[in-house]
């Protein structure tokens, strides 16, 4: 069997398993050989990546655990052209991360196969948390994020990943000439009246839900009567932390606005570089890793995996991508390992709690050279 076929079959096999049914030991065995095959495949396709793997301190072919395999830091996807394992004709879509002003976004190239797996991966995970029924899908964002484009941002990708659950899609924010989107209140109220006791799926970036949706409805004194709404949100807490909004306050107020139980508000962790995998919070506040992925939390001092309860840098591992070398990625986020196979929610595999983002590295001390000296032109004629 060719390497490509072997990989394809291995991924499909894992994707068809229940997402949280495999214990950590069995998962390790299955994933390790598949990751090795993917690394070998990527080395064939990309000489630069092969150069990186060649210089890794240990030979990946003899690795006994996933933690010993060569991983890439996510920052490498900010390179231009994007790090890729496919020819430009095979690029179906390019995903970009949500970089803040002045930052360079990551760019991830997807071919048809990776794109398909991405959809299936998110679907499999989300189904475990919200059920498989199709239902109205309320997007707390503007309609342009729904458009199918060759280049798509993190928000658009997250919104579109949940499309398969939708019987209809309603975007409740409208763009304005000033740039700040406006909540379409009439639309919301009419949808709420129509959907009432139905299951409803809601998705939005965390800060967008809070600032554009919850605050607007609260200030108007409006509560929607949607007791079966399930609200998924992602995108990080930085902006809300700046406004001193706690997770508890967020869940409480969002639940109050929708008129649904607080347990229906689900935060998940994810990133475009780890395409097809999302890590929703279970009812015990832990984030879970599906069968086709793994997570390693590494001690910043040694980069060795931490023991249960330890904190460190998150390495995400996913077998899904074959269009870019994103199988094993060291993120710039930190987490604490909650447990292996022992979460009270019953989901097997590792679980963790997000701890925060690593601040941007700064060159420190008197060797901190931020700007080059310029040879000044001679100043003449100074009185």
């Amino acid at each position, binding site marked *: 069997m060719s390497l490509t076929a072997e990989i394809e079959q291995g991924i499909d096999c894992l994707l068809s398993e229940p997402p949280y049914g495999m214990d950590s030991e069995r998962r390790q065995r299955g994933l390790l050989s598949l990751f090795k095959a993917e690394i070998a495949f990527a080395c064939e396709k990309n*000489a*630069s*990546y092969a*150069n*990186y793997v060649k*210089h890794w*301190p*240990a030979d990946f072919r003899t690795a006994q655990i996933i933690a010993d395999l060569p991983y*890439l*830091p996510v*920052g*490498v996807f900010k*390179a231009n052209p994007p*790090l890729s394992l496919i020819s430009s004709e095979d690029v179906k879509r390019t995903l970009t991360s949500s970089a803040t002003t002045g930052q360079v976004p990551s760019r991830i190239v997807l071919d048809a196969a990776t794109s398909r797996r991405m959809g299936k991966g998110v679907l499999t995970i989300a189904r475990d948390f919200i059920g498989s029924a199709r239902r109205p899908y309320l997007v707390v964002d503007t309609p342009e994020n729904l458009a199918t484009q060759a280049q798509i941002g993190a928000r658009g990708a997250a919104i579109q990943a949940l499309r398969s659950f939708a019987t209809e899609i309603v975007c409740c924010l409208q763009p304005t000439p000033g740039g700040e989107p406006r909540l379409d209140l009439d639309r919301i109220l009419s949808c709420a009246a129509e959907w009432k006791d139905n299951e409803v799926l809601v998705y939005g970036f965390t800060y967008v839900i809070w600032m554009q949706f919850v605050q607007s409805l609260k200030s108007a004194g409006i509560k929607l009567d949607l007791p079966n709404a399930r609200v998924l949100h992602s995108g990080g807490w930085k902006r809300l932390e700046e406004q001193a909004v706690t997770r508890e306050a967020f869940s409480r107020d969002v639940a109050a606005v929708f008129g649904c139980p607080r347990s229906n508000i689900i935060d998940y962790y994810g990133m475009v570089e780890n395409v097809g995998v999302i890590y929703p919070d279970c009812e015990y506040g832990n984030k879970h890793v599906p069968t086709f992925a793994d997570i390693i939390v590494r001690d*910043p*001092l*040694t*980069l*060795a995996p931490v023991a249960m309860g330890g904190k*460190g*840098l998150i390495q995400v591992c996913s077998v899904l991508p074959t269009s870019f070398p994103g199988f094993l990625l*060291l993120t*710039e986020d*930190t987490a604490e390992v909650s447990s292996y196979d022992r979460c009270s929610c019953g989901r097997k595999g590792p679980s963790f709690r997000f701890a925060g983002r*690593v*601040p*941007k*590295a*700064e*060159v*420190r*001390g*008197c*060797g*901190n*050279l*931020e*700007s*080059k*000296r*310029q*040879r000044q032109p001679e100043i003449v004629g100074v009185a």
Partner: protein
Amino acid sequence: MITTEVVQVVDSTREITAAATRLRDVVRDEEIVPQTVLEIFENWSDALGDREFQEIPGLAFLRLWLRRGTLEPILQRELGPNALSGGWWEDGRARLRAFPLGLIGHWPAANIEIQPALSLTCALLAGNCCLVRVPSSLVDVNRRIMEKLQEADRSGIVTRRFFAASFDYSRMDLQEAMAQSVDGAMIWGGADAVSQIRKLTFPHWSRLLVFGPRVSAAAMDATTWGNAEERTTWCRRIARDVWQFDQQACSSPQTLFLERSDTCDPADFVDDLRKAFEEENVAHPRQEIAPSLTSAISLVRASWLLTNNGTSAVFPQAPDWTILLGKGATMSNPTQGRTLTVLVVDDLLEAISKFDGTLQTLGLGISDPEREEILTRAAGRNGVDRIVKLGRMHVFSSPWDGTELIRPLVRMVRHVQSQE
């Protein structure tokens, strides 16, 4: 006997102005000659020899700096022939003598443990009194270092000439109070820190000595790095320069230029360098690291190798150290964290010709003195201020950053006899 807390936590501008007033009285009323200060410094150096001080980064340099043998020649060169006794010296029909500038404020960098002490010594040798802001992260270590000065200076001759204060960097009221009190300042650190302090309102007469951000590099000719017998020693010297101050100092080498050799393989040199780094890491393992530095190290390893234009690298799994090997004549951007970029270049002059004023120290390993002379002159022309042997890149000496360390802190008083 220790009578007062040697580094005091300060919370009000009143405490700073009170200290400044007292110190101004001392500097006006009590002359001190360099000879006296040297004696006390000699004792201080001895006192710092206790085993418990050995782990303080840079302490060996401080002890060496405090020695009479180091400081006497500097004083004589900078302040004149009779400088040690505080006497006048003839200058044609006039005579000259160094008098202290007055009260000197010190803003040391937060990454060099011994810098508050080093900065202080320059001003004390010039007969000044001093206000020192000890960065919060360095308070404990400097308390220990300065307590040894108190021990060595039992009569308090030198100790009563300075006030070491600790307060948060963001307390602009205290920074302002300090700036407004001084006749001169020694300001050290990174771009942000230096710019912030320079913005403070200093009196119009005050002299500012700014030792701002710089980077450093190293260079070796083909004969030197190609010599398999001596290579191990050179590699140890480089490792020592990289390890000191965790590569955060302005004198830390970030890039090593190797002159291309027709007979030797740079990979062999890198292999010896790897062994030296491994040994240094065993001797001086890192105790902690900022996660952001770990991320930066991981990223530079990957980015370097992914460029794949003949690049290679050697590093362990841990972020302990990294050697990046490639070709080129342009300094790499510093990552710090014991990350050394080794660049093979056809001609070292090509690399040196690209230096600008950002490069402070050039550590050299050159076999031919004539060749070294050519390289040194080229480096000087291109803004390099210190050119030293590899392994000695951090040895503190005057001038530093191209500036004398003591002379700018005195006023040279000229006297012409009125009866003449």
